[in-house]
């Protein structure tokens, strides 16, 4: 991606560079990240392969993969990469771009979970677990999952039935507004 070329078209690889402050050409495909990734077995495209797809310009394949969604953010890859390429940050960027571009994401449940989670923060300022689970169940229709743990949690006082609202809710709502994706 030459920045000296004045006719340069801004690509997704450039988007990623803007977001992560590092160029994908750093990766020399050694595979150490994929070798140490704890969720590697669940991914359809190996983590290093996602980087390879971006390097080669196969953006759609990269953005459609389940890989960034299954990423647990454990940072094992980032801490072991010999080129000091922050792969976790790269995955963050791929995820964000997938959302921005409205890509038909395969891991729909995971995205819905995050949406539900953020909804709670936006409204209450803090995570309100009952609300989160309720909203998530509504979005995904997985009505009976985790039902086993809820009564126990309620009895132990671990689930607050009513949400706690922070005083300055407005400041958090403002943050959401200012950082909303167009």
């Amino acid at each position, binding site marked *: 991606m030459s920045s000296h070329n004045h006719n340069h078209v801004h690509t997704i690889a450039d988007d990623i560079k803007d977001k992560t402050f590092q160029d994908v050409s750093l990766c020399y495909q050694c595979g150490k990240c994929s*070798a140490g990734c704890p969720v590697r077995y669940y991914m359809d495209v*190996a983590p290093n*392969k996602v980087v390879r797809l971006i390097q080669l310009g196969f953006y759609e394949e990269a953005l459609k993969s389940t890989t960034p969604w299954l990423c647990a953010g454990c940072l094992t890859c980032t801490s072991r990469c010999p080129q000091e390429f922050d792969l976790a940050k790269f995955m963050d960027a791929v995820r964000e771009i997938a959302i921005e571009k409205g890509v038909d994401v395969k891991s729909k449940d995971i995205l819905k979970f995050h949406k539900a989670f953020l909804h709670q923060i936006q409204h209450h300022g803090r995570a309100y677990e009952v609300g989160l689970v309720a909203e998530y169940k509504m979005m995904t229709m997985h009505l009976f999952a985790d039902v086993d743990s809820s009564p126990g949690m309620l009895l132990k006082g671990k689930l607050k039935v009513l949400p706690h609202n922070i005083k300055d809710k407005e400041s958090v709502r403002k943050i959401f507004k200012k950082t909303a994706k167009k």
Partner: protein
Amino acid sequence: MKIGVFICHCGENIGRTVDCPRVAKACEMLPGVEVSIDYKYMCSDPGQNLIKKEIIDKKLDAIVVGSCSPHMHEKTFRKAAVAAGINPFLVEISNLREHCSWVHDDIELATEKAIGLVRMSVEKVKRNQPLTTIEVPITKRTLVIGGGIAGIQAALDVANAGYEVVLVEKEPSIGGHMSQLSETFPTLDCSQCILTPRMVEVYQHPKIKMMTYSEVDKVEGFIGNFTVTIRNKARHIDESKCTGCGECITKCPIKKKAYNSFEENLAYRPAVYVPFPQAVPNIPVIDETVCTHYKNGKCGICVKVCGREAIDFDQQDRIVTEEVGAIIMATGYKLYNIDKKPDDSIYKGYGEYGYGKYKDVVDGLQFERIASASGPTEGEFKRPSDSKEPKKIVFIQCVGSRDESKGFSYCSKICCMYTAKHAMLYKHKVHDGEAYVFYMDIRSGGKMYDEFVRRAIEEDGVKYIRGRVSKITEEDGKYIVKGEDTLAGMPITIEADMVVLATAMVAQPDASALAQTVGIPYDKHGFFNEAHPKLRPIESTTGGVFLAGACQSPKDIPESVAMASAAAAKAMVLFGSDKLEREPVVAKVLADLCAGCFACRKVCPYGAVEIRDVITRDGIVIKQIAYVNEGLCQGCGTCTATCPSKSIELAGFNNEEIFAQIAAL
């Protein structure tokens, strides 16, 4: 004074941006200039003949050549001047290329600048003194620091040409890392079999003075005239009496306190020891740190059994000085250690591979000792933890190499080859064993090298997996190696019995200190710097010091041997003449003006400023002044710039000359 000005077009290099004919015309007008001409290629034969003709015809006293950098052709033009009868130091070069045409675009301004530059040189040359080159004698002896294969080769080459060599080796025996190897690639020759004859040749050579268990303490002097101070460390054995019978070693009761570094810490050695049976010289050393005698004065068994009374507990280090003309650095390398490093180290060690806590995760040299017939397992493949034969070995390449985050950015060059060799040696002995190699690339660029690696894969069934290993953990005596095959795009986990890491080749830990002692530059990794990476890979930037082997950069044995012979040749080039010519650009103290503050002495990087007493006729010292040793002075000019009373002048660049240049601007 009649001066000739010669402006070179340098083809298009100068001519494209500087209007050379105009410059030549303008310079005709300068006071003192007798003739001013331009020509396309001044450095060529016709160009030089042109200069010589003008000097003779016009009876010129001095010349100014407007051309490329003096680095390129100052010598050429000085030779031409001498041929025509002028002193070579009455030649000034005006750099119209690097300082003018190559850095500007505007023709008008560049030409004006060129005229100015030539004017400056004309004014300077008017004040130049006709200097004579300094002749310095040459000591035709060579010091070789390091007794590994490179040092041995260099020493033999120089000695066989008839010149004396002093070979200094810090270990008790010469041989270096090559003596630790089991077999060498690509021929699978037994390493010691091809090395030990050379070691003996060095030992017996009439022209080689071999000093083992010794280190270089100080180096003074300059090319052709070095004075080296060498410390012969105390072995506590009288070398003149010892026959190498080995009785002391056999009878020494301290058997398990010290690790044998030759065996890469896989075996112990007694307090009195030789590093390996074929050591040259075969004279033991007493390790004071573990020997009982030095703790409480007791024991002394070795004294009792020595038939020659060669044990000398009170022996002291011996300091000797040697005069040499050339120095060859052949100090070799060490392997990167994956152990945990201190917090302030820039290298981190490999925590994901266990920080060295797993006994069966070994490095390349340790594996060599295991494979070696004279090693701690006598050539049988037995793993360090329980001496069982490993049925599955994983080899991991690029540990510490090509790794900015934990190690070094460079490639260590030899690991791909020696890993293939290791896998092959293992498969040759353990037929039902499985060998896996995790690699990133295969770098096998030598003669018959790639074929060697293919042999490992195609004939010996070694499985190569393209990808790096993320983590090694131990479970019940097995090593779980988690890697990835990027070619198949799948994770690979292997339960290995043993893991061999191809760790990076790094500079010796004391390399930078030694470089400072000798006075040569080194890079950020501790490797010694060559004068030019392409065209002068054997010489260091310090005159008279040459580089051989892995101390300059990672390389294999054939390259080290070639480089050693090349370094020997360079030394012999030096010895080809009887006298060394040095540029007379040296500093000189104006004795009447010097106040004796010795600021110059403090700043001189070469230690060339001495203290001289000024005495009356009755022998009373009235003051002390500075004096520059012309032999050591390199003409850097630091003292000249420092002197607060302007009492030092640099020949060829004295104050008058410089001020004239400035005034001419």
